[in-house]
């Protein structure tokens, strides 16, 4: 029975998702988004889907965030919402 830890991580995930969408700085969004991905990966490990978690760790938290930062580097951090 590991639903308590599961629920804690899920709460964090949702928190990160909302934060990533509402922060007014895109670089912060990028980092929060990375955190979101990593927490998600944690969640999946808890559920036993290790392969998916591994992929998400390398892709979501890793490469995606780099792409994100690279894109921000070439555009702007500014956002209205």
């Amino acid at each position, binding site marked *: *029975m590991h639903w308590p830890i599961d629920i804690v991580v899920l709460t964090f995930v949702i928190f990160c998702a909302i934060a990533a969408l509402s922060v007014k700085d895109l670089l912060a969004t990028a980092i929060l988004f990375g955190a979101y991905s990593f927490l998600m990966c944690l*969640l999946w490990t808890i*559920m036993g889907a290790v*392969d998916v978690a591994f992929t998400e760790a390398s*892709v979501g938290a890793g490469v*995606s965030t780099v792409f994100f930062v690279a894109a921000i580097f070439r*555009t702007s951090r500014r*956002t209205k*919402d």
Partner: protein
Amino acid sequence: MSDVLSLIIAKYNYWLYVILMMIGLYGMIAKNNLIKKVVGMNIFQTAIILFYVSIGYKTNASIPIITTADTAHGVVVRAADYINPLTSCLMLTAIVVSVATFGYAMALAVRIYQRYQTLEEDELRMRLSEE
């Protein structure tokens, strides 16, 4: 009371995935900044992946790898001992798709910024109507 609690425990994962998906969808439709929209899109997609992974979960089951591989010849593999490998497999594909879309969307954002010097949707619309 305990009924409600057990219902919550039984279903909360599905509910939370719905919430996550709603957040993503909302971000995708309502946000003004294109990159924010892309983030919303990604959250939306991961929520679906979460849903699938939740489907595949079994209580008291292990990760889908035979640990006793070398001696497995005599060992009977029981289905209830391992979580569902199929959903994991499907979601690997889904993740790849989502990262591909994400990367391409970022490239598009860079391209749009090159041309219009903005990523805000309302400003873009204004620029387009000016032209």
